[in-house]
């Protein structure tokens, strides 16, 4: 989509040159010279004057964390995220690539999945709990297994929380379908501008799940959930599937009071992941889950719910000193609440925060909400 049409669709022309987006953006506070407003103004004007190629090569567009804080605060309701995503598409097409972190290992893994290599994605699942070949629920595992391998030394166990999730689902009497043919949901590709690869992955996954006869797709990872719920429909027609987040299921169970949780003497605080909170609108389920654990003391961080700040990295790219600074600020904010554990609901946030904590001696511990629940349920 050309930038002119993009401007039309995302109402960027409404911009009042007021700078609220830049003032709110966590990146512009640490990276001098980065101004979302200026970026928008530059793209609009250069496309107006037909000099798009001059600016499509610029790197600023990749520094944006796509954390949607600016979208949420813009007085003109400019759909800033859609605009950035569209510009990234154009930039990517013009050969301007995002700088990958971890030497691009994550991107290569995603790339490899499209080449039909057989994956052993489900071995852990068979040990952790019971899964089925077909059925109503499909558990979308996502890249968690790969994360487990890549970031073992960081003291995180993404697969651990995935298996806890499976055990809890089994406790609820849900035996979901898990398939080795599942591919990465394509979130990082979508936000790095590689929309063709994203389309390929999306179509494959949808076709797979439909083939297995499932109707509801359960997600543990917010990015998968959001991508499947909001962005798959843009590219796949008549999916006939609806995405269900694991915490919503747990929330329903808590309402019905079907399970007891043993007390946990801990003081915790909760970090709203951008994809889950601001972009998917889920604030209450995680908090209800934490609150339902007896004996636990929950305290909110100063910037919470729709005001929460990003964990500093997105799409495994642009990891630099400024992302570290954003992470450290966020961790300091968590520590300031007096909590000893920072609960996150996204495997990536968990990894990024653990990575930041590893290089700094802070008393704070990072834990995934699913793992917290599992320990409260004695799993």
């Amino acid at each position, binding site marked *: 989509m050309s930038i002119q049409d993009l401007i039309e669709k995302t109402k960027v022309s*409404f911009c*009042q*040159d007021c*700078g609220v987006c830049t*003032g709110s953006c966590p990146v512009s506070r640490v990276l001098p010279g980065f101004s979302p407003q*200026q970026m928008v103004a530059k793209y609009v004007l250069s496309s107006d004057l037909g000099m798009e190629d001059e600016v499509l090569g610029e790197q600023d567009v990749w520094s944006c964390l796509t954390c949607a804080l600016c979208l949420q605060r813009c007085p003109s309701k400019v759909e800033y995220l859609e605009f950035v995503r569209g510009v990234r598409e154009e930039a990517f097409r013009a050969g301007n690539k995002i700088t990958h972190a971890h030497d691009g290992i994550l991107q290569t893994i995603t790339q490899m999945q499209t080449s039909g290599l057989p994956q052993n994605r489900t071995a852990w699942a068979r040990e952790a709990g019971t899964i089925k070949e077909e059925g109503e629920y499909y558990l979308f595992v996502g890249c968690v297994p790969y994360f487990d391998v890549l970031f073992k030394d960081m003291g995180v166990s993404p697969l651990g929380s995935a298996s806890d999730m499976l055990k809890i689902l089994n406790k609820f009497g849900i035996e979901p379908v898990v398939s080795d043919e599942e591919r990465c949901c394509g979130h990082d590709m979508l936000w790095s501008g590689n929309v063709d690869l994203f389309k390929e992955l999306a179509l494959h996954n949808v076709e797979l799940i439909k083939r297995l006869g499932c109707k509801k797709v359960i997600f543990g990872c917010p990015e998968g959930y959001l991508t499947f719920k909001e962005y798959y429909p843009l590219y796949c027609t008549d999916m006939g599937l609806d995405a269900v987040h694991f915490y919503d299921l747990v929330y329903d169970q808590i309402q019905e009071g079907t399970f007891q949780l043993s007390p946990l003497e801990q003081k915790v605080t909760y970090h709203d992941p951008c994809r889950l909170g601001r972009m998917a609108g889920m604030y209450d389920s995680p908090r209800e889950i934490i609150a339902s654990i007896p004996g636990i003391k929950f305290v909110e961080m*100063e910037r919470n719910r729709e*005001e929460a700040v990003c964990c500093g990295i997105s799409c495994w790219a642009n990891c630099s000193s400024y992302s570290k600074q954003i992470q450290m600020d966020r961790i300091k904010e968590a520590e300031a609440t007096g909590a000893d554990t920072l609960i996150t609901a996204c495997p990536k946030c968990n990894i990024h925060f653990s990575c930041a904590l590893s290089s700094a001696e802070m008393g704070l511990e990072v834990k995934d909400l699913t793992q917290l629940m599992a320990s409260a349920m004695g799993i």
Partner: protein
Amino acid sequence: MNKEVLVIGGGIAGIQACLDLADQGMTVYLVERLPSIGGKMAQLDKTFPTNDCSICIMGPKLFEVERHPNTQLLTYTEVEEVSGEAGNFTVKVRKKPRYVEEDKCTACGLCADKCPVAVPDQFNMGMSTRKAIYKYFPQGIPSVYTIDDSACRIFKGKKCNICAKICEAKAVNYEQKETVFELNVGAIIVATGFEVFDPSDIKPYGYRTIPDVITAMEFERLLNASGPTGGHLERPSSLKIKAEIRQLEKQIKKAKTRLKSLEKKSEESGDETRKALEEMNERLPVLQAKGASLEELRDIAFVQCVGSRDLRYNAHCCSYGCMHSVKEAVVATEHGSELQSTIFLTDMRAYGKGFHQYCLRGASEYGIQFVRGRVAEIGVGDDGRPAVWCEDMDTRKVEERPFDLVVLATACVPSKGIENLSSMIGFDLDENGFVKTDPNKPANTSVKGIFVCGCAEGPMDIPSSVSMASAAASMAVQTVKAL
């Protein structure tokens, strides 16, 4: 020809329309729901661009409305029902009981001194307290006291009647009932004004959570001589600390007397109050030290377009925000010449007569700084002072600037009762909730014989409200004379 006209709303627009009509020989009923007329303008300290003291230029008009032979002032009264058509409207109005006889009360104020109940004073935006029996504001008209039956002990079943006893004029009458009566008028002018937008649900601005972030109207009251601090500019946070110190000292005194009386009766329970006393004695110096460390108010930030020009709250511009902040910055500098004001704005809207020169003088003589850029977030800096995050669109710098006080120039939203008034009478409202008018017949509503003026029709400054009030008066007279 029915020469009677009803004006709903006792702000500056209603007053001007009422006086114009009365001077032309019409009989005018001015209905105002608050205990006194004056509206929002009465809450202002000074007005732009002439820096006149607001109540000084309005006072003579308030007197005139009360004294004019052709006007009938119906305060503490609301419109209940309207029927009929142009030339012959029947209007049912309900006058709430003041529990004070208006003709007897001389507004001497003795009752208020003695009244034991103190509640937040809405005229001062809740920043100070008033008694259960109160006068809405010192120069208020009618100059009589009113008993707030939601605060007064008598109406909560307790025995009190201190004010009845103390009142020399014997004006207090707890049995006063509300009265309902019918008016038959030829035309109605809606002058119900506007409400100040409550910014508490703009979370990033931290209104209500950060004590030193206040609205422009609250700052106006702080500036005003009959305001909560008698015109002495102080930060709400230091006000709170001083109040706490006063509170603590009072409790210590009370504890000391209770301790003395207990020891006299030589009962052992004295040590529990003694412990509480010691604890309070420890806390006092800490508070006092904190109180002493508060330095004078120096840096003030004015945040423009709070809830205005914002599709999430109010798309429209409040028309007076920019000028209001410049004026407040100018007037503030009078209270302490070392004050430094910074105004964060996008468009500087100084479009009226003398407005632009006023702002130039504000910058050159009063040292006001204008930052081109809207405030994104207000947090608390490490020194406990509010800190404003914003991008300066000229220098492109993004920074957190600490201030002693942040004033939010809030939006102008339709007044509370306008919906049911519009359903009662039948005139249309526009999509923002203001009264809908045709640009070529600016004072006419969609119902014949019903006219509108002032901010009820849309955000505007005082000169426009006054001109439009006279316009509404002219239309009312033309309509009544034509029938």
